């Protein structure tokens, strides 16, 4: 940052000597600084390589093709024991992203709910929400993850004594099992209809906005759009003869087989991450809404704006300006905190790659570098996307 700041656009007097020329000086110092930074980087890299070779430790990425040879308990993408280390890396990334995505959705929903509850006029709801935030926000996340894992999920009954609901949903200490959808012939038509309806709804909303800007006439585009997105695929699904089967989990041998299984470590991790992060999101939501002066509501009422529109068109756009920047940080925190999965053995990137693979292959430097690069790229991408969104909703100063 300092480098760009020092680039001055001012031009110095032509009479001063070459050495005192401000532009020349700043360019010289920048080159010097850059050389120092590059030199330091080169020194660190070459020193690491040299020290590793004197200790007989292997560096390099050639091990990525080698067979990993260990099993992974939960994989989102197909994986066999004989697959390569690079596949293990991909499995870890997929699992980490899964945890982050589900965690962010749950944390946002719970956080929104609790944040609104904290401003409730009902004393009981307000107080419960406050204690929820204060207690959970002020205990370490690692402790919460372990508490969920050992305090809840491992205490569930064994597979033979599973809790079952309607012979379809089962809960035991090996996880939560529910039916998996299996697409039959012609299910693609339903998916196509869904995509079509989605595109149509987007077009409708765009058209309604243009028309309102031009004529002032309102059209309930969102309600109509949602109805279309639900109704059209449903209609196609029924007409095409319901081409979707459900694979029901059934007890077979030691465990349930078939269906979808959410293992205890994943459930504990997502619950702990969502609940912990939701406390921060709740406070962010509350602060955002309270930052909008009550005068805005009164002004809207005085102008005769409907109460439901007041929230959507006046309060929320202003509150979001306060909410979005800290919310980005919370999403990034959640993603990075998912690396605590290692404590309860969920195979996320850190657990399966930076722990197991590192130990099995002994390639510490490449593995740690790859892991750091992944988290860095994810964080920068999320941050970029959310910052773009933030720019869109920023106060337009004219």
């Amino acid at each position, binding site marked *: 940052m300092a480098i760009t700041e020092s680039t001055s656009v001012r031009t110095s007097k032509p009479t001063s000597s070459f050495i005192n020329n401000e532009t020349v000086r700043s360019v010289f110092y920048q080159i010097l600084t850059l050389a120092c930074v590059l030199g330091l980087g080169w020194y660190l890299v070459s020193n690491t390589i040299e020290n590793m070779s004197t200790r007989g430790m292997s560096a390099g990425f050639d091990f990525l093709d080698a067979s990993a040879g260990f099993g992974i308990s939960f994989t989102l993408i197909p994986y066999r024991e004989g697959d390569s280390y690079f596949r293990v890396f991909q499995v870890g990334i997929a699992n980490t992203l899964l945890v982050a995505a589900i965690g962010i959705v749950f944390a946002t929903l719970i956080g929104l709910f609790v944040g609104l509850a904290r401003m409730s006029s009902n004393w009981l709801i307000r107080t419960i929400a406050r204690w929820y935030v204060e207690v959970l926000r002020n205990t370490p996340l690692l402790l919460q993850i372990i508490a969920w894992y050992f305090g809840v999920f*491992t205490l569930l009954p064994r597979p033979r004594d599973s809790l079952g609901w309607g012979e379809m949903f089962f809960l035991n200490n090996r996880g939560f099992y529910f039916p998996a959808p299996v697409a039959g012939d012609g299910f693609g038509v339903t998916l196509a209809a869904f995509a079509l309806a989605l595109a149509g709804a987007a077009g409708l909303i765009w058209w309604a906005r243009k028309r309102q800007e031009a004529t002032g006439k309102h059209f309930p585009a969102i309600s109509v759009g949602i109805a279309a997105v639900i109704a059209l695929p449903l209609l196609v699904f029924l007409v095409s003869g319901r081409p979707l089967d459900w694979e029901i989990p059934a007890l077979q041998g030691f*465990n349930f087989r078939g269906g979808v299984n959410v293992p205890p470590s994943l459930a504990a991790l997502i619950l702990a991450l969502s609940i912990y992060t939701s406390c921060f999101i709740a406070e962010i939501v509350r602060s955002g809404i309270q930052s909008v002066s009550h005068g805005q509501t009164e002004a809207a009422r005085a102008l005769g704006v409907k109460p439901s529109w007041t929230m959507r068109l006046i309060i929320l756009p202003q509150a979001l300006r306060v909410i979005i920047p800290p919310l980005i940080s919370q999403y990034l925190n959640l993603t990075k905190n998912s690396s605590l999965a290692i404590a309860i053995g969920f195979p996320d990137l850190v657990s399966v790659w930076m*722990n197991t693979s590192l130990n099995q292959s002994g390639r510490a430097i490449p593995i740690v570098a790859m892991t750091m690069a992944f988290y860095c790229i994810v964080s920068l991408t999320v941050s970029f996307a959310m910052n773009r969104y933030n720019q869109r909703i920023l106060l337009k100063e004219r």
Partner: protein
Amino acid sequence: MLKKIVPVAATLAAVLSFSTTASAQQTLAQVKERGSLNCQVGLPTPGFYGLAADGTWSGMDVDVCRAVAAAIFDDPDKVQYQSVTSAVRFTSLANGESDMLSRTTTWTAVRDTQLGLEFAGVNFYDGQGFLVPRDSGITSAKELDGATVCVLSGTTTELNLADYFRSNEMEFTPVTNENVNVLVETYLGGGCDAYTNDKSGLAARRSAFPSPDDHVILPETISKEPLGPVVRHGDAQWGDLVRWVLYGQIEAEELGVSSENVDEMLASDNPGIKRLLGVEGNIGEGLGVSPDFMVRVLKHVGNYGEVYERNVGENTPIGIPRAGSLNAQWTDGGILYAMPFR
């Protein structure tokens, strides 16, 4: 601007002048100068690296550290123990945080050749097995198709497990963790159908269960697990010392020298015993310790048989019978065989 540059340049100069390349042949000198041996053991496990309530360590692998310390200092208690998880042990040793690793570590080609480490011998021949609850009715590992198996991450056990199920065309779900205590808790809570580890480790862990008799070790041994102490690659003298202290204890048992009769044996006419105890020859000198280093080791720690019986023998809660096993002397049908002390 110049004010900012000067500290940067000074730091850079300081960093550049600092060389981290340590000379390889100095572990023994460092240990002597420090006055104590840094030895890595595992998370407390009875029999191999058990931790008593008063904070003292004991066990098969702890005795390797104690024997080396006795050889150097004539005092087996001059050891700083570092309790490490299986996942960090090699990096930690390679980085020089300790002088040796004695932590039921399996000798494999990859570990020996690619991690910058060197195995100094074998102090326990083991094999991997499965522990299951008795009431599960399982009597063979072949019945484990579809089972959920608890396994330590980053171990050879983890790889053998996958190999065994693959070669027998069976399926399994691993429950992995780097912390053995978490795994054992998960197993006892029913979170997995079987717990797999080296059989000695299973026996050791089981001895600490609330009711050990409710769990059985299945008969199958699915792998070779030669466990031994590890040192850093490149310091041959230090590796030799650890290796010959271990061989010395095995040789002493073969020759009938124990902690009880070592003083009498100093007067023995047997040339083998004379060489072992430093009465003749100069083996200790070549290792950088005093000629009577084995006398110190035997006095303080004992020979291999004493170490075995004290820590994991039949009269201990772990109770691993030695007779007829791989860990018996080669003269008794085992494969324990010290290279000649001459």
